[in-house]
């Protein structure tokens, strides 16, 4: 059996990459939203509702929500890892962060999907 290397590089590479990919997804979504708003998507409540109900925007919103929650998980987890040293408190914060983010994702997706 190959011995596991416990120290070294690449342990955070996957998260590092995921944080950047989700950032790009969110940046593209932001650009789409800004263009939509400049073309009047937020000029009235009806226009806003119609814009967000559009099939393409709905999928884009879904991808944005998932990206946001994954991105926030990595970022907030890094903050706890940097500043919170006691293992017990850190574990509690990690679990709370994960649970709230999964909850937020469900809530937000449900709002978009109900339209």
């Amino acid at each position, binding site marked *: 059996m190959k011995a596991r290397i416990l120290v070294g590089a690449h342990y955070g590479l996957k998260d590092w990459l995921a944080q*950047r990919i989700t*950032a*790009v997804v969110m*940046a593209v979504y*932001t650009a789409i939203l800004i263009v939509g708003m400049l073309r009047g998507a937020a000029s009235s*409540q009806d226009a*806003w*509702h119609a814009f*967000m109900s559009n099939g393409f925007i709905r999928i884009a919103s879904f991808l944005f929500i998932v990206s946001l929650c994954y991105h*926030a998980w990595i*970022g*907030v987890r890094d*903050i706890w890892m940097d500043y919170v040293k006691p293992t017990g408190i850190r574990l509690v914060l990690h679990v709370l962060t994960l649970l*709230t983010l999964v909850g*937020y994702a469900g*809530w*937000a997706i449900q*709002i978009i999907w109900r*339209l």
Partner: protein
Amino acid sequence: MPEMTKQRPKYLALHQIRLPLAGFVSILHRISGLGLFLMLPLLIWLLELSLGTTPEQKATFSNVTGSCIVQLILFGLCWAYLHHFCAGIRFLLLDVHVGIEKEQARKSAVGVLVISLGLTVLVAMKFLGVF
């Protein structure tokens, strides 16, 4: 390995360390990210209300977004989003080795601060009906 266990000097007098501008952008990136995370429930709730179809939801939406405190929080969050967005793009460019020279990096740090603040003022003015 005596070298490894040697006590190294620490200098963490935060009030005396002068943070370069790029460091300022970096810590604001972290603070804005945490702020957005903590305020996510408010933002999702407002999204829900903004897309609501019942008269109660519409009334709640105008009441909530009409309150001065909420408006102040929203302008703060708007800045946080824009700063996180601009600083994030700067970091992505630095990752692919664009603008890593000292002078360029300083200029892009200034750019992030100016653009995000400027756009926040524009959004706030639009929201308050100035133009």
